[in-house]
């Protein structure tokens, strides 16, 4: 390992612990505490990736989450590999493997680099403009574009890491562990508030913790030493929790925030075993203090993207924090004082600072004087017009700026440098503030958007540089003053604080720096990841885009994984300058969560696999499993679909089950049907209002089928309701509709009809339902309940009896969904499995055959009974279903009644339910298939579609239900079902195919 670029200074990494890692297959070394980026730089590797569009070589540009270029693929395991990870954020661990992205065959030789040569013909909107025509070619273009424009690669196997979610409630949440965050946390803790301090790094202190200059003193100590002691003092507060490696992702209303804590990402793969990888914190805070800091801006000049061009403050962090020299001959290019801090740090560490190019005419602040004392050369009033070096900066050329800053004058001066630090000022990180609903104001002297105090949601405050304070004394004093006020703290340990610091005395800003070349021959990059330049923004404006949101999307500025944290402000500035508008009026693009990308794993937490949704199983489920049922998901329920025997196909099993149910006896687990217990003196009146038919005259002990509508007149749900006693009913609903029906009924009871004395209770889980049908059903019930009189006179169809099975209370309903003589046993669920087995034993001699939902559907279709949700879709009235008989003409009102004679619902050409028979009785239609009359007329008019279709073993032919325009009038008419291979001829029939006279109910 080359140690030439490491300095031995009192910094924040442990140079006694060597860590080996691989980058693009090459084994390298770093130290404990390094990030991947700092370790690469220490190994003199700047070139890390290729840009998105032009495939230009790109290097590490920053040291934090704003990094646009150095995004890498971590690991090669198909389950755990992670794309688009910022090298500046990943902490180095033993065995870390990282790869460059968006390059082929390698980052050093990338075929896509040809796009850079083609760049004159790849302007903003190139894809939109070029691939518009011919439209049919889009599929071909898309493949090519996707292949060449990918960033990282997704994992190909399921993620087997563990992720967690956890709630936290606190009095005060402090976001950011820089100097203002630390001060805020201490104040909150002094007040006695339960406080959480969150920081995304592994170490508190922000950029002040390595600010070791004579020009910055707090209470007579260098600012870094003072802050280190303050951080140490936080540990004594029991009411303060510090969460490091935790990144705030989203700030929602009512102080609800999401943060991602990285728990194992800094550990070696071996150490991670069986540990939770990341945790999503769901935080509800009484008060939020945002101290999210600011991000240094780049400068926008020709070829400002070469590897080796790094933000000035990042160079300072690499040297002061990580002890890494980003070059041996470094120049700086700035419009403000902060680059001078970097120059001083470099100089003190023995790195040659070649020159500082400053676009300002002069500055006499202390920090500038300190740099001048060290003998650092400063070129005032100059700008860089060109940089050279393809894979690493080698040299650059500077020229004097004209007095208005819009042009250059004089001669070019050439400098050699292997690294340029750039600083264009600072951008407050207001992302979280605006996510919470806060509005911004523009502060023109610093060209920044900061929180508008008057438009800030309550119970939050922004402090420090995210609030526009950049001078150390302002940061400290304003933070103390504002936080004390915010949390109503009178006295604090900071009341006699004394800050001395260098103050910036001159400011100058030029969003797009001029070059000696015309603009169209330069490459001043704005969005480094998406390769959009200042030219592109100007082109977009010329082409008529005005709104910042449109320019953003057209040029893709700010749309990369970094979301334009570096240069969105420059894009705004250039738009404002070009169009002559004020930046404050222009506004910003919308800041959306998450602040930095989240893994899907973190978002879903433990809710994967069987925890993704609830699974409901009936009390008889295990019997079904033991008897090899295939299951179907119905809502959250697992229902037996069919019971294959001896390797039967589904078709064979369903045909056998259907025949057996009609010829002798079938048994169905109907426990999933919704059951609502209805009691109260107005129960009958209530049913009158919710069902279309009349209920007052239903005798005790009788059952009735009911149809429930929405207020718009469309069929909503159906089921049989039984009158158990004078004021006591039990309603059944469809399996899928149970919860919604209960909610709807509760809604009407609570809000529209509070005068009704009715109580609703769901008893779906409490009772299990076993349905036995077929000519031998009576014989089977007789064996199980010998003392129940099953004669038609005593126990007719559509009636119920209270009874007992082995001493256990049960309700027997004689109702039928198959058209056969049937009984339903309703019994407490904990006895259901035994009763089911008793039925199976009793039915053995009658070849009792368990059947599933598919056979149930087939049998009811033979009878033309609808399934709401299958044959209906929320657009059909009872009349559309040919069920006019169920609409009471005597009732004054029920839900949906008035809608049944709206002009639209009485149209005769509505889609209506019909039966279909295929001309070839062996041909089974596909459900969802379209129905047409004239296949040759263009456009072909689609009259409707098939809703249910089966091969009926009892009729020995194919049957189907369909909804068809004007279907009621079309009985006997021939239609066509056009399929891919052929057209199928069908005839419209009655909806009832089997036992039209209902003789079998009493068979």
């Amino acid at each position, binding site marked *: 390992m080359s140690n030439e670029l490491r300095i031995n200074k009192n910094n924040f990494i442990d140079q006694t612990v060597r860590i080996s890692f691989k980058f693009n297959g090459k084994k390298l070394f770093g130290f404990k505490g390094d990030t991947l980026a700092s370790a690469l730089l220490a190994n003199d590797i700047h070139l890390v990736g290729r840009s998105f569009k032009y495939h230009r070589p790109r290097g590490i540009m920053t040291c934090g989450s704003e990094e646009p270029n150095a995004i890498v693929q971590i690991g090669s395991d198909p389950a755990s590999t992670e794309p688009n990870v910022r090298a500046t954020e990943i902490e180095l661990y033993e065995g870390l493997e990282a790869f460059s992205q968006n390059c082929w065959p390698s980052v050093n030789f990338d075929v896509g680099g040809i796009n850079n040569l083609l760049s004159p013909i790849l302007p903003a909107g190139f894809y939109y403009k070029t691939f518009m025509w011919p439209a049919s070619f889009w599929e071909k273009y898309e493949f090519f574009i996707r292949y060449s424009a990918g960033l990282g690669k997704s994992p190909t196997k399921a993620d087997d890491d563990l992720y967690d979610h956890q709630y936290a409630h606190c009095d005060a949440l402090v976001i950011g562990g820089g100097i203002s965050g630390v001060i805020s946390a201490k104040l909150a803790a002094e007040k006695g508030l339960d406080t959480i301090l969150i920081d995304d790094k592994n170490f508190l202190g922000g950029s002040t913790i390595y600010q070791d200059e004579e020009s910055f003193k707090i209470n007579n100590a260098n600012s870094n030493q003072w802050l280190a002691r303050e951080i140490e003092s936080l540990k004594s507060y029991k009411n303060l929790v510090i969460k490091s490696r935790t990144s705030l992702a989203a700030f*929602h*209303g*009512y102080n*609800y925030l999401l943060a991602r804590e990285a728990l194992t990402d800094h550990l070696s793969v071996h150490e991670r075993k069986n540990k939770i990888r990341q945790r999503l914190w769901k935080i*509800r805070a009484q008060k939020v203090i945002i101290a999210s800091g600011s991000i240094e801006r780049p400068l926008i000049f020709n070829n400002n993207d070469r590897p080796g061009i790094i933000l000035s403050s990042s160079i300072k962090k690499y040297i002061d924090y990580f002890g890494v020299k980003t070059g041996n001959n470094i120049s700086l290019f700035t419009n403000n004082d902060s680059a001078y801090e970097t120059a001083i740090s470099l100089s003190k560490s023995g790195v040659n600072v070649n020159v500082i190019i400053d676009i300002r005419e002069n500055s006499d602040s202390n920090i500038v004087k300190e740099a001048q004392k060290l003998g650092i050369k400063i070129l005032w009033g100059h700008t860089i017009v060109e940089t050279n070096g393809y894979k690493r900066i080698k040299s650059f050329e500077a020229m004097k700026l004209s007095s208005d800053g819009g042009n250059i004058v004089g001669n070019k001066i050439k400098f050699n440098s292997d690294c340029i630090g750039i600083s264009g000022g600072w951008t407050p990180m207001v992302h979280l503030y605006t996510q919470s*609903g806060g509005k911004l104001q523009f502060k023109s002297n610093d060209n920044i958007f900061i929180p508008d105090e008057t438009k800030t*949601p309550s119970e939050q405050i922004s402090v420090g540089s995210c609030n526009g304070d950049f001078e150390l004394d302002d940061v400290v004093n304003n933070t103390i003053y504002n936080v004390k006020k915010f949390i109503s703290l009178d006295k604090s340990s900071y009341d006699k604080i004394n800050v001395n610091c260098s103050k910036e005395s001159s400011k100058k800003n030029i969003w797009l720096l001029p070059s000696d070349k015309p603009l169209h021959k330069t490459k001043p990059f704005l969005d480094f990841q998406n390769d959009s330049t200042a030219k592109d923004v100007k082109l977009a404006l010329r082409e008529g885009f005005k709104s910042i949101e449109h320019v953003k999307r057209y040029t893709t500025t700010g749309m990369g994984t970094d979301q334009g944290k570096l240069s969105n402000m420059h894009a705004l500035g250039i738009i404002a300058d070009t169009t002559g508008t004020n930046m404050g009026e222009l506004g910003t693009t919308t800041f959306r969560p998450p602040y930095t990308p989240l893994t899907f794993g973190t978002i879903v937490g433990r809710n994967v696999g069987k925890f993704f949704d609830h699974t409901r199983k009936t009390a008889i489920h295990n019997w079904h499993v033991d008897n090899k049922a295939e299951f179907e998901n119905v809502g959250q329920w697992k229902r037996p679909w069919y019971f294959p025997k001896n390797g039967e196909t589904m078709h064979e099993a369903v045909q056998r089950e259907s025949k057996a149910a009609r010829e002798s006896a079938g048994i169905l687990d109907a426990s999933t049907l919704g059951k609502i217990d209805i009691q109260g003196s107005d129960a009958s009146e209530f049913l009158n209002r919710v069902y279309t038919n009349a209920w007052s005259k239903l005798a005790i002990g009788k059952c009735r089928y009911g149809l429930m509508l929405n*207020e*718009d007149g469309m069929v909503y749900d159906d089921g049989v309701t039984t009158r158990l006693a004078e004021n006591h009913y039990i309603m059944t609903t469809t399996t899928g509709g149970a919860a919604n029906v209960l*909610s709807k009924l*509760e*809604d009407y009871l*609570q*809000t*529209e009809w*509070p005068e009704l004395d009715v109580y609703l209770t769901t008893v779906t889980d409490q009772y299990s339902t076993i349905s036995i049908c077929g000519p031998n059903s009576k014989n089977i019930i007789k064996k199980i309940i010998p003392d129940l009189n099953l004669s038609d006179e005593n126990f007719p169809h559509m009636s119920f009896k209270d009874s007992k099975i082995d001493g256990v209370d049960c309700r027997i309903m004689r109702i039928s969904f198959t058209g056969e003589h049937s009984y339903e046993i309703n019994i407490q669920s904990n006895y259901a499995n035994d009763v089911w087995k008793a039925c199976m034993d009793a039915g053995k001699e009658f070849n009792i055959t368990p059947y599933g939902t598919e056979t149930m559907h087939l049998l009811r279709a033979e009878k033309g009974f609808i399934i709401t949700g299958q044959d209906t879709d929320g657009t059909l009235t009872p009349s559309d279903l040919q069920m006019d008989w169920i609409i009471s003409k005597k009732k*004054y*009102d029920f839900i949906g*009644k*008035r*809608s049944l004679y*709206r*002009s639209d619902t009485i149209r005769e050409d509505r889609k209506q339910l019909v039966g279909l028979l295929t001309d070839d009785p062996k041909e089974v239609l596909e459900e969802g298939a379209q129905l047409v009359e004239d296949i040759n007329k263009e456009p072909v008019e689609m009259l409707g579609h098939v809703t249910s279709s089966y091969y009926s073993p009892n009729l020995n032919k194919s049957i189907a239900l369909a909804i068809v325009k004007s279907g009621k009038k079309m009985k006997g008419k021939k239609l066509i079902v056009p399929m891919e291979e052929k057209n199928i001829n069908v005839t419209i029939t009655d909806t009832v195919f089997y036992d039209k006279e209902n003789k079998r109910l009493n068979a």
Partner: protein
Amino acid sequence: MFIINCPYCGKRDQVEFSCGGEAHIERPKQPTELSDDQWAEYLFMRKNIKGVQFERWNHTHGCRKWFNMVRDTSNDKIHATYKMGEKPPIK
């Protein structure tokens, strides 16, 4: 994510609730007396206000009670919650 003050249970997280649209639209007592247009007005027409709006909410994963809410849709500030049948405390 709001904190909602259920008139029956007190302050709870929004995940426990569901919104049921505009409040104070009474179901006509005599629907059959209404013209198609009048019935359509009740059935379909809802306001979508930017600003203070009256809404029906249900404490779905709690007491299951319906109640009303006054909410400013522009900033999600909840001005009041009150029981069904009560008059809105704010105009």
